[in-house]
């Protein structure tokens, strides 16, 4: 059986821009970038990651498929939207960055162990399972993802924040036992399965 990645390579040959346009959310905007550099200079994290949006978009057009999909830059985006509101060409940059991250993940190319990716996955797993995010289980899973000892350390370090959330009614300690779900979890599971099926077919990931 061929993988989704092999299928994509075979289908789009060396035309990575075309691939992005067909498979990445808002990917059809990439060709509109005029390489002015405003997004790169506006990103608060700019100095700390390797590929700014400007650079990613140029790399896509230059066919640097592996480098783009394996980059951890898309995972560093905090969704501050600074780039997006300033882009003179109105590219939905933030959405494209998330779209690329998602596509890379689905192809199995995204960098393993990238912390933001791990968090995103925990978040979604929780949401998909319960129909809502169980904040407590989500936080604990996050703390303990690097093993028990580190988990205890993390939990202690975050203690005051956690207590604050409990006081404000934002975090319910009882959730660890029952954890309320939405009314019809199996209905949610079916909806999501269907949505995924449609999406995968459209993006050639089926």
């Amino acid at each position: 059986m061929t993988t989704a990645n092999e299928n994509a390579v075979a289908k789009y040959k060396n035309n990575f821009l075309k691939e992005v346009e067909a498979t990445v959310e808002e990917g059809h905007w990439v060709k509109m970038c005029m390489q002015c550099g405003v997004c790169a200079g506006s990103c608060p994290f700019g100095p700390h990651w390797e590929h700014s949006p400007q650079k990613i978009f140029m790399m896509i057009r230059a066919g640097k498929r592996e480098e783009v999909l394996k980059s951890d830059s898309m995972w560093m985006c905090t969704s501050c939207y600074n780039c997006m509101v300033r882009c003179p060409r109105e590219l939905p940059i933030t959405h494209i960055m998330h779209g690329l991250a998602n596509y890379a993940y689905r192809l199995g190319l995204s960098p393993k162990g990238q912390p933001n990716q791990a968090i995103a996955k925990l978040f979604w797993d929780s949401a998909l399972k319960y129909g809502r995010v169980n904040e407590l289980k989500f936080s604990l899973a996050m703390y303990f993802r690097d093993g028990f000892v580190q988990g205890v350390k993390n939990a202690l370090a975050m203690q005051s924040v956690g207590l604050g959330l409990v006081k404000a009614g934002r975090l319910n300690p009882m959730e660890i036992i029952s954890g309320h779900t939405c009314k019809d979890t199996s209905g949610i599971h079916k909806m999501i399965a269907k949505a995924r099926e449609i999406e995968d077919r459209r993006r050639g990931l089926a």
Partner: protein
Amino acid sequence: MTASIATNQTILVVGGGIAGMTAALEAAECGKQVILAEKTPTLGGRTSLLYRYFPKMCHPTCGLEINLRRLRGNPNVRVMTMTEVAAVTGSRGNYAVTLKVKPRYVTENCTACGDCGNAVSAEIPNPANYGMDKIKAAYLPHGMAYPQRFVIDPSIAATPEGEKAKAACKVDAVDLGMQEETLELTVGSVVWATGWRPYDANKIQPYGYDRYANVITSLEFERLADPRGPTGGKLLRPSDGKEAKNIAFIQCAGSRDENHLRHCSRICCMATLKQTQYVREALGDAGKSTIYYIDIRAIDRFEDFYQNVQKDATVSFIKSKVARIALNEENNSPILHGVDTEGYHRYASEHDLVVLAVGMEPEVTGVKLPDDIILDSSNFIEGSKTEGMFGAGSASSPLDVNRSVQSATAAAMRAVQVIHKTASTEAA
């Protein structure tokens, strides 16, 4: 001025900049009757507020002088200053126009001796220098003003200051009782040569024009370079009056940007290339100009101008649209942040002064125009539905002086055709 004698054989030209003057003269020299209505107290428009103009780096006097001489010698043009068009109705060959004439408080008797200006002490921000300095409230708009007639600012007309001006005038040209007048005319065709205005730099939030004294516009820089400007031609920083030696120019400030003006303003690349030569003229090898740009658009035959500037060692080019400007609090110098496209290097560069090459937006943006007028997506005038009104010069597209003049000549010829056709249908 005698009673109006406009008919449907008359052409109205709105706006007395280089384009309006040209359109009026071309039509008048074909024997047509023309009314040239200008809303400010003088003809000349924005060209007269440039220090020099590309490509030949001549002073605006030379272009304007020729046109003024043609104008003085031509009885077919009636010039009306301080006059705005309030309404236009009708269609090709027959327009009813309402004009509003503001009081100048000075009559045609004025000899421009300046006694009134010397007599008053009240001052107003100088419109010819974009308010960077002050002038007396009884003033001549600028050295090239046409007509050469003083203006009394409405703020002093009804005050003892106004009376001082009146008392000082030896030829009794000051008339403080003047009122705003409304005139109704019939004309056959209208040429809109209403020109452009700079895009409001305050709206470009990340550049801090509203917050930082040493971030100025390209228009203000023209005035700094001009010996008749607020600094007598010295390139001084607004914050501390020190000489600015290391000057940054930011291209496309408000242009080519869906958040601001979506069009390329076309002249600002050339304007900046020109302004680097002001820096050289003022400071020689000690001056330093840095141009931050997306791409340089030195339209067609100006490519050689660009190449010459590229050879100038005091000028450097950085391919990058600046993302934001911060301030060095100690010396008030702006620090430019961004990433350059040739190599993706991140920079934080300090300059003494930043000049924003602001975009051109049509002066009529936000103004109620006749329903008949067709505008493009940036509010430039494309024409009118019944083809009796035309855009000319920078009102029709972001154009330099040379192309404004060409466009105005074309518009004048179209207006003349309208008049001819109206005359022949009426004769038949």
